[in-house]
């Protein structure tokens, strides 16, 4: 799983970060259309890389995800991504996602002719280094079908902060949880052992194309929006490794102060914290809020340990202005 193909296919990229006498250097930063990798910022041992996709009829790009890496010793970090498209039109292929050796993306064809958009990211976090993947939320438009698979191999005392979040669509035009499918898989490995595998699948209630099944079991419709109400933004954060311990301690202290008394209506934001891995090595946070801005403000506060203990004010404000 760690062998990255040498050849770069369409819509893929590679990043390798190394450290030369305490200065981060991007030994490799290459991508092919329509993926673009930008690294406008390298300071001491920290590098930021932005990942964006654009052009070519892709209905996306208004939410460029970005991530940043930090190494504290001579380390490399590899990443690989493919294209990302936010709208599915049955029968039309908007962009090709080429299956690659090693990191396969293969669609077992269903009865429908629909295509979907897929993004794969693989990361290797070497001992002593940290990876922070802090993208903007994914926004799936009406009828979009999106699939995201991210795998993280953390080695030794490497550390990881991973944020994965979703908003319901273009709310300004009344589009709320109107996409057809969103699939997000995050797998975190530590020294060859899988310690967390989070798989989220959000599917709109299908207009069943099999009339037999609807007549056999008559059940009222329940939409994705019904299930996710009243919230308009869901986020998941995985924190793992020695570098994130102060952040986890902050979160634990916050969580210990939460007490639930019976209320009549849901509050505007709720969140949970559960430990992952052995000996409190990591944690997973889930947040739901009425809207993305509210969740973003909450994240900015709750993860402020990243500013204090990992990247400093400049970089943190680029992510959470």
């Amino acid at each position, binding site marked *: 799983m760690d062998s990255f193909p040498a050849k770069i296919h369409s819509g893929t990229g590679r990043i390798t970060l190394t450290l030369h006498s305490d200065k981060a250097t991007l030994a490799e930063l290459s991508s092919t259309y329509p993926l673009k990798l930008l690294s406008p910022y390298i300071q001491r041992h920290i590098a930021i890389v932005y990942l964006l996709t654009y052009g070519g009829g892709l209905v996306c790009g208004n939410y460029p995800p970005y991530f940043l890496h930090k190494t504290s010793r001579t380390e490399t970090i590899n990443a690989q991504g493919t294209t990302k498209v936010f709208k599915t039109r049955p029968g039309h292929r908007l962009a090709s996602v080429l299956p690659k050796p090693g990191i396969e993306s*293969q*669609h*077992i064809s*269903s009865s429908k002719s629909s295509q979907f958009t897929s993004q794969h990211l693989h990361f290797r976090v070497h001992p002593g280094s940290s990876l922070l993947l802090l993208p903007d939320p994914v926004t799936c438009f009406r009828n979009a079908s999106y*699939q995201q*698979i991210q795998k993280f191999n953390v080695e030794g005392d490497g550390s990881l902060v991973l944020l994965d979040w979703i908003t319901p669509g273009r709310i300004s035009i009344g589009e709320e949880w109107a996409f057809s499918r969103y*699939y997000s*898989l995050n797998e975190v490995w530590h020294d060859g052992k*899988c*310690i*967390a*595998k*989070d*798989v*989220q*699948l*959000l*599917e709109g209630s299908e207009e069943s194309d099999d009339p037999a*099944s609807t007549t*056999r*079991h*008559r*059940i009222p419709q*329940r939409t994705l929006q*019904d*299930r*996710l*109400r*009243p*919230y308009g933004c*869901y986020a*998941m954060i995985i924190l793992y490794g020695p570098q994130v311990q102060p952040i986890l301690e902050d979160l634990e202290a916050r*969580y210990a102060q*939460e*007490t*639930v*008394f*019976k*209320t*009549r*209506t*849901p*509050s505007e934001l*709720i*969140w*949970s*914290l*559960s*430990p*992952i891995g052995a000996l409190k090595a990591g944690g*997973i946070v*889930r*947040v*739901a809020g009425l809207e993305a801005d509210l969740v973003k403000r909450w994240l900015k506060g709750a993860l402020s340990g990243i500013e204090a203990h990992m990247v400093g004010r400049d970089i943190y404000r680029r992510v959470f202005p």
Partner: protein
Amino acid sequence: MSSTNDNNDTEAYILLTLADSNLPTGAFVASSGLESHVKHGFSSLSSSVEMATVNFVRDSLGSYARTALPFVADAHILVSNYCSAVEQSRLQETGEQMKERTNVLKALTDLDELYHTMTLNHVARRASISQGVALLTLYSKGFARPSSLSAFTATESQGQEDQMKNLLEAFKLKARREEVFGHLPVCWGMLTAALGLNLERAQYLHLFLHCRGLLSASVRLNDLGPYAAQQVLFHAVQPLIATEMDSIKHLRTGLLVDPQTIFDEPSQGPANTWPLGEILAARHDLQHSRIFNS
């Protein structure tokens, strides 16, 4: 033909026995997030308390089925295959069989481990482990045949029964030594396969018990009266389970797939489908007062 009828009768009897609400399978202490859901005020989003419960059952069932049924399936397949291997060889404990059992135990352990890494919510993990281990105990204390009743066994099936008992005992021992967790879906698949219930019925019954557990919790929480809960169970839950079964019974974990075939995890593997339920379930322990364990 008569043997098919015999099989059906036997399976019907197993179903009746396992569906007994008196079995100590942990449903009395688990609400699978319902208590937290109610406490956080989410019932107010539905038109009535009754509909709030129906909607919760539906969303919870959808997510649980998609997450857990692949594990029930794979555990069931492993134990059933082992069972028929034992039956075909009709051998006593031989080196070959010991080896086979070690392999099956290893595969079950991997399944259990995978379920653990995919259940990223400490409250759900805790509940799943305690119910799973309760099932293992139930098997050894309530279903494995004691020697005093050995006169009721056909001699040819005796060896097979013993092998099943040894397999589950070995797994239970690993759970006690904390080498495995003993998660509910894995243990359910093992138990039902060991008893000879077919996979589809085992999956169906698992979902039924999940829903019935939620409705009993609703009654205990004083949200629904016992009759109303019965009505929901009888009229609403059946089509909900049938619909889930149609779309989910074929899913697998991907662990048992041989390397030659393509396993497309996004369409064929387990997934959580209700992030709100996940947050509420994890927040269970934050409740100022609570009557359930999950």
